[in-house]
């Protein structure tokens, strides 16, 4: 049974990637390009040591977004608010980090805790609305994403929390002093964020929390069946609220790798779109910490290797289409596999019943 699960768990994502590669190949052939050549160029460019480093750094952010989404998924929550939560976390982490001066390690810790608090509190709004008002978290989070972006754009105004550095067009927060920065370490001749270790820690903590603690058990139980969990004494609404906040807190960490090791300040140049990426990665990685890592790496690999398509005369945005089709195929694959399994089980039960009747005769 367990073997079966692992088999389907790996076959379905691979099938999804392959089928999306096929689709992209068709598009490329229509464009008059040779898909195999293009994929070769992408692979050789993407595995170039210099690019591997930036992919790894991007993977850190995507990984955290994926874990944040996965925590939600375990509770059947669709946390599309990761975008807003990540913004809140990165922004307030940057503001608080620049405002205080503390000894080195404490300073970084304070920024990390602030970011988690900001992300968690922002998510708490959606959690409250879900638990107390019965508002779908999808709708409230979509609205909250827009509102978060507006609040930060407003607070970044020059007379408030933002400054305009000389020779720059981008308004940003005051820079975090040296004590609040995280070092990078050398790998493949590049600078890898040491926030990578925080991401690894989060992944391990997520796994332990889910599989080895009472809290994790209650979380999974509530996700599987709200009513059953409730009647066995779990505070199910409370669990939904806490899970939402936890997911938001992890989402608050998404931007910190870049913030602490690279830019040292928040600006409007921070990318958006982490919500859908995180959800896709959690789906692709089956909510498993290791699976999410591979999915996150695949995502940043595709994005990093995309610009090289330009030289081949193919608009690099094809990669976005590819990501979208990967997600769709994976979800479809899971659905189909689940249905086949269900049918097999039904058949097995039916056959057992027939045998039983025959025996009794």
């Amino acid at each position, binding site marked *: 049974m367990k073997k079966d699960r692992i088999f389907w768990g790996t076959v379905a994502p691979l099938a999804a990637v392959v089928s999306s590669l096929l689709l992209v190949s068709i598009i490329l052939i229509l464009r008059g390009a040779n898909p195999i050549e293009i994929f070769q160029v992408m692979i050789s460019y993407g595995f170039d040591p210099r690019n591997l480093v930036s992919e790894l750094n991007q993977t850190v952010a995507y990984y955290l977004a994926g874990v944040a989404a996965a925590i939600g998924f375990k509770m059947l929550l669709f946390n599309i608010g990761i975008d807003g939560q990540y913004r809140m976390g990165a922004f307030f982490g940057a503001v608080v980090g620049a405002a205080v001066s503390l000894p080195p390690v404490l300073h970084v810790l304070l920024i990390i805790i602030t970011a988690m608090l900001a992300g968690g509190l922002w998510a708490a709004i959606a959690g409250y609305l879900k638990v107390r008002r019965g508002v779908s978290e*999808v709708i409230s989070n979509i609205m909250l994403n*827009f509102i978060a972006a507006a609040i930060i754009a*407003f607070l970044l105004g020059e007379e408030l929390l933002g400054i305009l550095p000389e020779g720059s067009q981008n308004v940003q927060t005051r820079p975090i002093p040296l004590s609040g920065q995280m070092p990078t370490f050398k790998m493949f001749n590049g600078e890898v964020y040491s926030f990578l270790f925080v991401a690894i820690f989060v992944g391990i903590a997520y796994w332990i929390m889910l599989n080895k603690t009472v809290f994790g058990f209650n979380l999974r139980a509530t996700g599987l069946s709200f009513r059953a969990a409730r009647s066995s004494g779990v505070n199910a609404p409370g669990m939904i609220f806490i899970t939402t906040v936890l997911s938001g807190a992890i989402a608050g960490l998404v931007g910190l790798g870049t913030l602490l090791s690279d830019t040292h300040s928040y600006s409007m140049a921070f990318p958006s779109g982490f919500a859908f990426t995180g959800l896709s990665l959690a789906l692709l990685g089956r909510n498993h910490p290791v699976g999410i890592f591979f999915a996150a790496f695949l995502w940043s690999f595709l994005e990093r290797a995309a610009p090289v398509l330009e030289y081949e005369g193919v608009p690099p945005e094809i990669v976005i289409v590819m990501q*979208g089709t990967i997600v769709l195929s994976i979800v479809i694959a899971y*659905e189909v596999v689940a249905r086949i399994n269900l049918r097999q089980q039904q058949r097995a039960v039916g056959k057992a019943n027939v045998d039983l009747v025959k025996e009794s005769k």
Partner: protein
Amino acid sequence: MATESKVHVKSIGKAKILFKSPARITLLIAGLFFILALVESLTGATDISSPGTSGATLRFAIPLLMAGLGGLWAERAGVINIGLEGMMIVGTWTAAWFGYLHGPLMGFVAAAIFGLASGFFHAILTVKIGIDQAVSGLAINLIAAGGARYLSGVFFPPVGGDRTVSPPVDSFPTFTIPVIAPILESIDAQNIFFISNLAGILHGLTKDVSLVTIALLLLVPLTSWILWRSKFGLRMRFSGENPMAAESLGINVYRIRYVAISVSGMLASLGGAYLALVASSVYREGQTAGRGFIGLATVIFGNWKPGGVFAGSILFGFTDALRVRQSESVMSLIMVAGIVALVLSIFYSINRRWKPGLISGSLALVAWWIHQRVDVIPQEFVTVFPNFATLIVLTFLAQRLTPPAMAGMPYRRGSE
């Protein structure tokens, strides 16, 4: 306890009567205009009732309306369509490209066809295969955005466009309604209290109108008629409220949903086409700017009714129009809201309903405070007003909303 609930029922009944009767609604709207006229003559900011604002409001409202009607069709049949944004992108791109090749009318036709196809795609994924409706919608958003950018890069540069902008497309001819529009304009110019303000608004709605605008506006009563007067509409609402019961009465829920979601995609796509062909005359990357999501918000705001969606899109289109015009208007609008809150508070206090009276009273105080203390409302906040308003409605009026019971829930034929 008993008396309390009786009072409550009575007051709800009263509120219902107040808002239901057409005469009262007219009176209420007239009252609102009166306050508006008062504020305008007090502050001297005349932009709210200027013809430019009302014309722009209509132009900004139509795309939201189309997205909202699209969301309404899908949700009434029981499927949430998060992919509205992507379907609007499909509309902007196809309208611009086919409009460039064969003229704006063909652009609209192409947008309708491709929108129908994108809706059908969502239907296959959610109805036939049965994947999560939100995942499907979001994937459609991603694929449409990426696909449009890819295709722009392939098709537009060779014909004089850019990688992000299409070549200019002929726009639709507009016309000014004869006789009425000039009369309204002259009244507006005379600066009579109240009457001129009203004339200004109407003048904006009667000059430089596009036939497309009128045609798309007619979709509101049409949707209303289909939903509440036709056999298909009844079945559609039935599959949104209780698909199992519908199925047991011989209704083909799958087929109904296929049709409804396809139409949903077509409507959203037409909204996109309007953006590309009427509100401007090019396709530009990021043109939809989250309007699909605001369309989703108008569905909630309008309580899943076509008229409500229309009202919501006018309100949100109005904020959109103000955003690109002047910030003083926003300030005088807050003054209007404050006065309305004050009037409501007095009304509630007379009826001895202290809680809503207190709430609206404090709202009036907040409005007064903003008016006294804040110089300019930051543009960022004006932009997200629709999102904020929707969140507030969901928070405080969630019990009054009547969404289709099974919208967003997975449904498989023959399962429980």
